[in-house]
């Protein structure tokens, strides 16, 4: 039995483990700050980290940061949830029914390699530049990897597990519900993580397209860039990176809770 560690011990151990990474972050930003101050680099090209932090603080103080970030996060999650429901559902259906797989396989093979950004003009013609366009773009892009992972997860279930279940008296229906679906949960969860990454990329890309509304971190980023507010550009990048890291780590944590057997450690 492994001994339960107290919270303070675990946090201490965590800090110790991440210490090299933390030190590298500090050194990197310190070197950046010193370089900018010493060579007197114009902030239009490369603002100092201290200046970026001040900008970030101002954006937070006037509320614009949280407003735009909230809108972007809403679009990401809306697109992701649509993609997850449709993708997992269709993937399981394909995995269970060879006929459905035969119909959908060529469609997936054709649509998967298509760069999803190339759909932007068509989606704007059809849906305008509002919320529906941004959410559809991210949902459609995230949907394919989720579908493919779910489908292959179902198909790659160890056939010996199916024989074992049948030997223990499970009917065909019971085997699907009690063995095939739980056995493919790790693959489905991996597909959802992939899909989330893509949803983030496509929402920000959609927000950056000219004339597609005045909201979201992507809009903030592109409009700051156009007027050479480089501090604001860096501030937006920092926010995007941090939000992405939080979402991915959170999803990883949830995945490990749902399907602990699907992870090596």
């Amino acid at each position, binding site marked *: 039995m492994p001994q339960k560690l107290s919270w303070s011990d675990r946090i201490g151990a965590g800090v110790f483990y991440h210490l090299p990474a933390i030190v590298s972050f500090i050194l990197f930003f310190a070197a950046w700050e010193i370089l900018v101050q010493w060579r007197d680099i114009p902030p239009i090209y490369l603002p100092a980290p201290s200046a970026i932090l001040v900008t970030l603080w101002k954006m937070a103080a006037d509320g614009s940061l949280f407003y735009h970030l909230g809108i972007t996060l809403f679009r990401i999650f809306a697109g992701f949830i649509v993609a997850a429901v449709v993708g997992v559902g269709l993937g399981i259906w394909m995995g269970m029914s060879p006929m459905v797989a035969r119909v959908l396989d060529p469609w997936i093979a054709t649509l998967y390699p298509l760069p999803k950004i190339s759909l932007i003009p068509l989606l704007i013609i059809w849906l305008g530049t509002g919320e529906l366009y941004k959410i559809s773009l991210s949902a459609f892009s995230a949907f394919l990897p989720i579908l493919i992972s779910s489908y292959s997860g179902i198909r790659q279930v160890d056939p*010996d597990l199916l024989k*074992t*279940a049948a*030997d*223990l*008296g*499970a009917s065909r229906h*019971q085997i699907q519900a009690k063995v095939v679906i739980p056995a493919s949960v790790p693959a489905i969860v991996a597909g959802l993580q992939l899909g989330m990454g893509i949803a983030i990329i496509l929402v920000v890309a959609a927000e950056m397209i000219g004339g597609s509304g005045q909201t979201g971190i992507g809009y903030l980023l592109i409009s700051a860039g156009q007027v050479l507010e480089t501090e604001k550009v860096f501030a937006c990048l920092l926010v995007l990176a941090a939000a992405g890291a939080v979402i991915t780590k959170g999803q990883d944590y949830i995945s490990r809770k749902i399907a602990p057997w699907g992870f090596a450690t």
Partner: protein
Amino acid sequence: MDVIVREVAKVWNAGGRDQVAALAPVSHRFASGSFSCLLGPSGCGKSTLIRLVGGLESLSGGTIEIRDPVSCALQPVGKHSVMMWQGLNLFPWRTVIDNVAFGPEMEGVSRNERYAKAREVLAVTGLQAFAEHYPRQLSGGMRQRVALARALIMGRPILLMDEPFAALDAQTKIVMQIELLRIFEAARKTVLFVTHAIDEAILLGDEIVVMSARPGRIKEVIPVNLPRPRSLDVVKTPEFGRLFDHAFHLIREEVTRAMEQQMAESA
């Protein structure tokens, strides 16, 4: 249950028109309540034979009869047997108790009832304290016990075991063999036990069915008349040594032949 195997054969499709005869026509009667060990080199069709008896593969020829020894009534293949697999095939997303209770769950037994039953079987296999653990949290020997408990809970009269202890370290293996002897002697089942360890076959079996290299056929059936209940002490008896010598000489030829076959195939 008696298991009567008549002229049973199995042919595998090896891609295209190639066919591999895994099992030449084989006939044998596995008597009700007796422990039979199938001994032979790798690829001699031992596992194939017990899978056929369990109704887990289709026959290419011959018949398998499962008969009630008292009424002589013919029984359906697969309904009265349960397999303990070489790879164990535990369900990794289920706790120990949910793995063990899988069979009753499929039969629609209520949660309380099947858990009570599973706890009884877990007590027999010494796993009460680990009911809530997941298979990955257990050692190799403990996983074996879970797989055995999951088979035993079915209460089926025929137990098929496909090299269940092959992956264990030597000490754990001995412990598991002694456990299996105890369980078998407490409730006699018809056991078909595949192994390629001669000492294991003698220690456990009432008879040793020695099989030849591919295509598998029965070379000789050696009766093991060591008294039960048995303990590890039988290893020291002269009868054990005599049986070992006899089986070893039969097996040696077959293993050599099997190795030559494999080398010819890979060349």
